[in-house]
């Protein structure tokens, strides 16, 4: 639904919004999937089929392994991606015109 007279800011803002929400979708899917699969320990194995054995817990830089791969690494990746997004993908537009 692109109109020829569309304001350039609108074009780039729309593109960036879709990109940002897509990144969010990737983050949600990965983090919630990873943590649900590797981070839960529950006696009710019917509800949590992948329940972990507590003895299997290891630590990476002090963090529980599933936290490290499920949240900490994604957090660092997001920070870098946010920086790249902000400095290379987003365009500056004149707000006053």
């Amino acid at each position: 639904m692109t109109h020829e007279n569309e304001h350039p800011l609108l074009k780039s803002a729309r593109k960036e919004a879709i990109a940002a929400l897509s990144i969010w979708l990737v983050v949600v899917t990965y983090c919630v999937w990873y943590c649900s699969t590797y981070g839960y320990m529950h006696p009710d194995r019917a509800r949590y089929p992948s329940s972990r054995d507590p003895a299997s817990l290891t630590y990476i830089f002090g963090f529980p392994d599933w936290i490290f791969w499920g949240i900490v690494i994604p957090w660092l990746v997001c920070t870098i991606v946010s920086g790249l997004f902000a400095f290379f993908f987003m365009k500056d537009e004149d707000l006053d015109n």
Partner: protein
Amino acid sequence: MLIAIAASADATPEVGFSVLAALLLFIAASVWLGSLAQKAMEKKDFMQGFFLGNRGLGAWALALTATVQSGGTFMGFPSMVYSFGWIVTVWIGSYMIVPLTGFAVVGKRLAQLSRQTNAVTVPDLLRERFGDARVGLLASLLIMTFLSFTMFAQFKAGATIMKHAWPGSGPLALSEDFDSSTKDAGSADVVTLAGWLPESPKYYIGLLVFSVTVVGYTLIGGFLASVWTDLFQSVMMVIGVMLLVCLAVPMAGGLEQASQNAIAATSPSIAFGPGYSTDGREFLTPGLALSMFFVWVFAGFASPASMVRVMAAQNTEVMRKSIFLLSCYNCLIYIPLIMTCIAARTLLPNLKKPDEVIPLLSLKVTEGFPFETGQFVSGLIMAAPFGAIMASVSCFVLVIASGLVEDIYAKYINRNATEAQLRRATTISMVAVGFVAILANLNPPKYLQALVVLSGSAGAATFIAPVLMACYWRRATALGALAGMLSGFLVYFGIYSCGWAQNWATANPKLAIAGRILSFLGPDPLIGPTGLFRPYYILGVDPIIWGLAASILGGIGVSLLTRPLSPELVKRFFDIRPATPQVQN
């Protein structure tokens, strides 16, 4: 969000004058920043200057204040980590992407629309964009309602902190469920003033000091005062967190050791989902984890307080820098705070009230400091949540006052108001808001706090459709915006209040009506946080998901069913302006 303080008679160290001194320092700094802000406001246009800082927010100010997150960080978060363990990292996890979504989804367009409509408030912007006064009016009423509840509760919290900061009150506890009817076991002056004022005089003095200060500096310096004090408080917070993590974690023997100690003290479930529990509730199920990844993100860009900040950005370059600055800032706050509170299980093994974790930890880690600096440093750390409350209150008072003056006074009461009249209206509104807040807190209601927690999510559920449609959809109509707001709001509150009914019925099982409620809604599913005001979980997810969906469906559906906006109106906001600009208002 609310933080309330309760005195504890059991724990040993006394706070002395350090916390009070730190609070007074915060207050003095805020008033000073307020007066600086007043000088910085160019005397161009009162409304634009007072309520939007003449759209001059730079990258640091925008980054550290836009998502209004600082108010919530010290709220129940540390006590949650202490109580439930590592799973709280997942609860807060979506903050990793909040900076990006916070600015990139609607930031540029809101800033542009705000200039095109000359809007000073969000309802202003929506009214102009959809060409219908009702949209602005409804938005205004809803915003003022949500924010008022949050704000009243914050006044109470601020007053309570001051009450307990008086030396000799015992250590501070940052409690979410402060029961105002419990008497402080340690304080001597539990004298009630007249029969109907249940609190001690210290509380009322604190309430007065807090109210006068915050309303005062916001009145003097307006939007800029609010932003600068928020900025100051954010900086103090990161310093506090860094101090704590660098002292507490090594003291506990390192992070891995801290986790193992925690496991030894409680159970392995403290290092796994759904979290350690003493009463069989699962704190964070996968469904709730998914919900939290919606809550922070959508409340981060669709809540009114965040939108106002973005509208005040200088330019898009500032927004881009803010994304990066805020991402780095978040890394320095959340994960270190979690590490600290895990370490707290080693350093403070038998905390009966987890809400006391930050105050007691600050005292403990600074014990070895020379020349009494330890007391002062820990006072500063403990005063950080106070700064957060002041920043939140200042922001909310401003947004409410802007609504009263711009959306109601200037539009309906006095259409040709002069600048002097606008100034007077602003002063009166702010003082009135402060006054009502004091009245609301004379006999502080106990459960306003629950409404506080709702307001971020409620704001998101209500405004998601109108805001997205305003920014990107030509076919959106005024009625669609109205429908989006109402459906989001009603669905969210409707579902949430079923939770209150369910909890009430569970707590009063003997009543017949309780049985009927429970047979209709189902029994307590034993998930989520403890407390009387939990939401109702449909399919195991937070109501925000249904609220967001309802808002979007309502907004899109009604827009398609109603007549489109006039092409001129749409062109004004979506197309390139013709070479000879039309006359704007």
